[in-house]
């Protein structure tokens, strides 16, 4: 490693993954350790904040140590510590924030608080060395749905957001309704492959703002469809419902993202967040972008889910800009994108 290399240890604990990573020069991932709690929360049909927080404190040191070992670096080699400080579950965030602060304090390293969504966007830089702002980005996860112009590293113009449920949240709720269980995204993706996406036409929300989203309508339509079938004694085809629901959501996401890219003269479009690993979304977005001569970027599934590598990448660009946080850095559960 050359003397000029910038090494950042990043920590992420905003929801149900305890994660740590070492990132070199903002683009090279030396390690990416994720301890997932999904199995624990499956019993409850969703993430239980107190259980998540308890698991984070149990795993955090192990995960950080593994990240350092796998990257073959010591704390002495590091240039900074980055950590997700919002948005997310406050109790969960606090574990990562307190850990990161203590490590950077003890080793006299700069501390950089990172916005979780900025991390998701930055996940695209990992495997695409050519990708640089500006570009259009659609962020879709269990907690967020945003359509943004990435004007520069860490600089966003928000064009649209969800008015109600996040896209991933709608997947979870529909998965529960058709008995697929938690987490809904991957399960719907899988079962949809055996269903007919044109079997049922679920309505798409019409909103005044062309870039805003709404998913509670399509979710309700699915629930109503199931109830009606049950009352009329009709057989319910889970695969068809899943595929048709998925198509309704994917069509909306693709349509709005591509329209936004065209209208803002962006020749690059990226997707980010947990739902970005949905195979139907990737396929549809790819086809639409090809039609419109837009270059399409998406991270591998491992970088779509919550991870610390993406936080390390985002922290690097903040580090270059001179962003530093104090020892009083707090967790901010409802941190807005672009806020510091």
């Amino acid at each position, binding site marked *: 490693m050359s003397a000029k290399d910038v090494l950042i240890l990043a920590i992420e604990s905003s929801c149900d993954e305890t994660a740590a990573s070492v990132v070199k020069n903002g683009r090279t991932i030396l390690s990416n350790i994720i301890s997932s709690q999904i199995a624990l929360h499956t*019993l*409850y049909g969703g993430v*239980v904040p*107190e*259980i998540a*927080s*308890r698991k*984070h*404190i*149990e795993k*955090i*040191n*192990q995960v*950080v*140590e593994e990240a350092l070992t796998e990257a073959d670096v010591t*704390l002495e080699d590091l240039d900074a510590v980055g950590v997700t400080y919002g948005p997310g579950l*406050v*109790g969960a965030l*606090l*574990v*990562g*924030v*307190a*850990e*990161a*602060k*203590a*490590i950077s*304090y*003890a*080793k006299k390293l700069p501390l950089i608080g990172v916005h979780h969504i900025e991390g998701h966007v930055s996940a695209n830089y990992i495997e695409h060395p050519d990708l640089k702002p500006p570009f259009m980005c659609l962020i879709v996860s269990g907690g967020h749905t945003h359509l943004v112009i990435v004007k520069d590293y860490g600089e966003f113009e928000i064009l649209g957001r969800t008015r109600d449920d996040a896209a991933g949240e709608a997947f979870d709720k529909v998965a529960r309704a058709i008995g697929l269980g938690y987490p809904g995204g991957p399960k719907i993706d899988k079962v949809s492959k055996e269903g007919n996406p044109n079997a049922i036409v679920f309505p798409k929300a019409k909103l005044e703002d062309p870039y805003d989203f709404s998913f509670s309508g399509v979710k309700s339509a699915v629930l109503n469809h199931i109830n009606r079938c049950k009352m009329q004694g009709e057989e319910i085809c889970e695969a068809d419902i899943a595929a048709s629901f998925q198509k309704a959501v994917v069509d909306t996401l693709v349509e709005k993202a591509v329209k936004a890219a065209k209208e803002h003269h962006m020749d690059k479009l990226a997707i980010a967040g947990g739902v970005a690993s949905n195979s139907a979304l990737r396929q549809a977005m790819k086809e639409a972008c090809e039609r419109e001569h837009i270059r399409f970027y998406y991270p591998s599934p491992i970088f779509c889910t919550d991870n610390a590598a993406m936080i390390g990448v985002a922290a690097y660009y903040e580090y270059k800009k001179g962003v530093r946080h*104090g*020892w*009083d*850095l*707090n*967790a901010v559960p409802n941190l807005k994108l672009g806020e510091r």
Partner: protein
Amino acid sequence: MKILALDSSGLVASVAVVEDDQLLAEYTVNYKKTHSQTLLPMLDEIAKMIELDLETIDAIAVAAGPGSFTGLRIGSATAKGLGLALKKPLIPVPTVDALAYNLYDSTGVICPMMDARRKQVYTGIYRFADHELVTVSRQKAIAVEELIRELNALGEAVIFLGDGVTVYQEMLKENMQVPYSFAPAHLNKQRAGAVGALAEKYYREGKTVTAAEHQPEYLRVSQAERERAEREAGKK
């Protein structure tokens, strides 16, 4: 032996450095700011004041519970991060034991109580014998009424302390049948100095854990687990 001690288990945030039976520094704040914002700046402040080189400490002591779940985790994650970075062991000190240690060598029984919500307190019953802290009743979460019955049955004078006193003072006044008193302001809340002093003793006894091993002792399962257990029990 030099010990850095942290307590963020209740309303108070407190940081101390104890070296060979001497308290080098202690910073205690009982104010509405969150521990996440106060704890590390407080440590930074005292470290500067006493020119502390963190590498010279032998262990990090932390009030390990019970207490506010979030408060405990802020203290624990801070201790774990420091332990990882400095490669030092942790000394988890039971919160209620450390509170009792505030009243070293007092006569009668000592009863710390922290408000645990749901009409309960985190409490324990202690006394000093031959200059040693003796546990009469281990730290636990119980209803205040039950604690009062236990203390009345013991038939000895009681000193109360902790943030639960403020909440349950009237109930104690009405129902205590043995002589009792309330510890004064400088002794009645968590003090990292007491955590550190007790930790010195634990350190000599070899009661340390690795930073990776440590996790708080909540004395309670989460609400979701409790409700799930109740539902399961209801089915049977």
